């Protein structure tokens, strides 16, 4: 409680300061060694380009973010009920787990062209790819969480003559909540990669498309700007999930 503001301030400033130092070093090196802009642009050049191309960057970010979020939410909505089925029906586990594991093992880069062949070059095939890369980390964590209810808590519920449904709602779901979030955090970073993979194969917009076209035209600063926005997007989404986690999981398991 009685934490002095000094170290807290210092803590908060360490990260930005380190990033700033790195940026300055990058700028200095590219200037000093006269690295050509199409190989490695200076941060200042990237910033200028980003400013010039701001409307295009924004509209393409919106596309990629939409694909990522829709895919992620869809993966969440699909994998949680699937996890319930797998956790409680041994038959479903025997049949579904190998299929899902197989699906997870296929490199999504290899699957992407097929998905686009089947679904066209709109946003939906990207959403499907996002779902494919996201569902597994969520599923595995939720299945493990659903099975993690401690024996003594199960005994307590049984001693109260609780039905299986009551045990599920009052105990198992809550035990599965803390592991759900690490799964989601892994999934959301995968999700961003998933939409970019889709956009790399065939697209008309999105940050992946922008990176691809700008590198093809040797507009390296623009590619870097898009890459940067992509990274920020991924980091922001990650922390957004962490913020939700902090609000939902208020106990230490």
């Amino acid at each position, binding site marked *: 409680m009685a934490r002095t503001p000094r170290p807290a301030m210092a803590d908060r400033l360490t990260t930005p300061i380190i990033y700033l130092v790195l940026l300055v070093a990058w700028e200095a090196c590219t200037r000093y060694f006269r690295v050509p802009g199409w190989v490695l642009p200076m941060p200042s050049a990237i910033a200028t380009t980003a400013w010039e191309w701001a409307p295009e960057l924004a509209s393409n970010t919106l596309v990629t973010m939409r694909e990522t979020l829709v895919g992620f939410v869809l993966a969440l909505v699909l994998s949680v009920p699937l996890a319930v089925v797998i956790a409680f029906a041994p038959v479903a586990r025997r049949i579904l787990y190998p299929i899902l594991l197989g699906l997870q093992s296929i490199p999504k880069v290899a699957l992407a062209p097929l998905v686009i062949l089947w679904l066209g070059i709109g946003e939906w095939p990207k959403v499907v790819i996002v779902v494919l890369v996201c569902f597994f980390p969520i599923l595995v964590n939720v299945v493990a969480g659903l099975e993690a209810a401690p024996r*003594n808590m199960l005994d307590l519920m049984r001693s*109260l003559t609780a039905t299986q449904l009551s045990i599920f709602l009052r105990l198992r779901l809550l035990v599965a909540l803390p592991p759900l979030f690490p799964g989601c955090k892994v999934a959301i970073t995968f999700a961003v990669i998933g939409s970019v993979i889709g956009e790399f194969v065939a697209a008309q917009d999105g940050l992946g498309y922008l990176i691809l076209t700008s590198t093809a035209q040797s507009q390296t600063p623009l590619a870097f700007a898009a890459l940067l926005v992509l990274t920020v997007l991924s980091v922001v989404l990650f922390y957004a999930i962490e913020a939700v986690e902090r609000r939902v999981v208020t106990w230490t398991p």
Partner: protein
Amino acid sequence: MAAASLSLSGVTKVYGRTGTETHALGPIDLTIEPGTFVSVVGPSGCGKSTLLRLVAGLEPASDGRIERDGAPLTGPSREVGIVFQDHVLFPWASILENVLLPAEVLGLPKAPARARALHLLEMTGLKDFAGARPQMLSGGMKQRAAFCRALLADPKMLLLDEPFGALDALTREELSLELSRLWQELGRTALLITHDIEEAILLGDRVIIMSARPGRIRADIPVDLARPRDVRTAQHPRFIEIKQQVRDLIFARPND
């Protein structure tokens, strides 16, 4: 008076499959009159917890008959309240919500359940912590909350499996005296498993001593000490006499 009777005849428990089975318990014959407090002591691993789980209906007996109030046991019952060695409080729920769990599960009317829960928390000195999460409480307070939860649905029988086992000596003594008072007020049947001989005598109308695995009843000692009992009861000559008797029985070799 709503207290349950209990009777076990020829009850055994064998865990595992044939070939690798563990004969954990019995045969056990035991009758408990309504409203009596029975303490069970015995060496570690002799099947005390197993006995309690069978009586609670959490596990079926391998052989023999268990009857509660004259009816054969079929499974867990709302008329039984259990306190385990660890508090088993849900970390995501407040103390009040934890104490109200039986009412939630059994679908009891909300308002009276809440009133009773608050009353129980007040009796155990936890009223100020009704809204707190379990991790905010000390070990002794958590175990008090577990007692409140066990008592919420007004069970006819209390099953206690080393309820003070995880506590320090002082808290342990304090809580067992509290339990003694509480039990006298409620007049319910109680079965207490414990490692502590003094605790067994202080609380019990009878002390049952079990032999090493497979646990059988080696002796059944009546405790003819007046109630209410308090700290000084432990200095009573009769208490010391019974304690010596129990110790002798526990540490006696099987063929004596």
